[in-house]
């Protein structure tokens, strides 16, 4: 939760603030990031063992080539759409499996978040804020457009690094 107001009474020292954030980091890492990453690694293991990963590579090859990415990168985007931790986990396991390079990961990075966890956040963001449901599909589409455009921008930026 956003804790912007400083507790009036106790003078929270720098140490307290750091420990509080660190504890929050541990909770988020164990209860959210780790299960997602493990799911992603299991998913990739299943795809690799069944040989589906190579098929995805070939099928999505031409599409992903638009961004200079191998076909397998599509798996990252699909996983991100379900959960950011999943998208990141898939990207990391594909990197370990040498299907994605550091440059590919950098290009994918903003996209993973810009279209990340939309399935989950539709309810938690649009639902909670009671946004007019006529526009929900447009909003989701815009998120995906954001992601695709961002990949081109990152590809351009990479030229300087």
């Amino acid at each position, binding site marked *: *939760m*956003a*804790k*912007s*107001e400083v507790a009036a009474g106790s003078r*929270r020292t720098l140490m307290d*603030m*750091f420990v509080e*954030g*660190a504890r929050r*980091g*541990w909770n*988020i890492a164990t209860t*959210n*990031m*780790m299960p*997602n*990453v*493990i*799911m*992603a*690694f*299991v998913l990739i*293991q299943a795809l*690799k063992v069944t040989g589906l990963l190579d098929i995805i590579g070939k099928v999505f090859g031409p599409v992903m080539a638009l961004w200079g990415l191998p076909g397998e990168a599509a798996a990252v985007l699909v996983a991100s759409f379900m959960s*950011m931790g999943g*998208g*990141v986990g898939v990207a*990391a*396991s594909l990197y*370990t499996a040498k299907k994605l390079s550091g440059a590919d*990961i*950098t290009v994918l*990075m*903003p996209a993973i*978040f*810009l279209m*990340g*966890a939309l399935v989950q*956040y*539709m309810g*938690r*963001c649009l*639902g*909670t*804020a*009671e*946004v*007019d449901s006529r*526009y929900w599909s447009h*909003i989701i589409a*815009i*998120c995906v*457009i*954001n992601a695709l*455009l*961002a990949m081109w921008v990152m590809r351009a*930026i*990479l030229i300087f*690094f």
Partner: protein
Amino acid sequence: MNKEHLLQTDEKVTWVSYAALLFAIVFFSGIFSTAKGWLQVLDFTVLQGSFGTIGEGGKEVFRGSGGTGARDGFLFALTLMPSVILALGVISVVEGLGGLAAAQKLMSPLLKPLIGIPGICGLALIASLQSTDAGAGMTKTLYESGAITDDERTVFATFQISADATITNYFSSGAALFAFLGTPIIVPFVVILVFKIVGANLMRLYLKKVGQKTKNSPAAA
């Protein structure tokens, strides 16, 4: 979230807050990661440090190489934990010193031109960068208190949902990929923020266009 709390920040923003904000930007930007001498201490990847190696040939601390499935995923997640803990610890300190309040103060005047929503939404925007639920909750209250119109709410929600809880997610899940990035970790983060704004403006244009259509043919359903 009572209404007054939303409409103005009760914290006074001092030079400490601006210093904290500047520190956060420098810390996560990676500018000093290759600096010589004490300046290095102002850098995330330097303070993150590195794991020891086991055995002479061993490279990846306790994860080794050639692992697969849930087990390798578990160890990989374990290697990320120090970075997540450090990142969110530092962010909490910056927030405690009012760094985010400073960011909000700087940003409020820009909201109207940049995204087309009133400066009042500054606090909700900062909240949405940290927690999906906080941002959405405050947006709902902003609408109900009449601070923003329905269209402004839709535009603001489009800004929020794309890469929602940006800071928390980027520095927790994102930590998994920091080691593989070809650019400093702040670069993708900035690109994300830019495209959140782009997305909001796409919705703004769409609403204006839909607005015209219903205006000049009100009979349309």
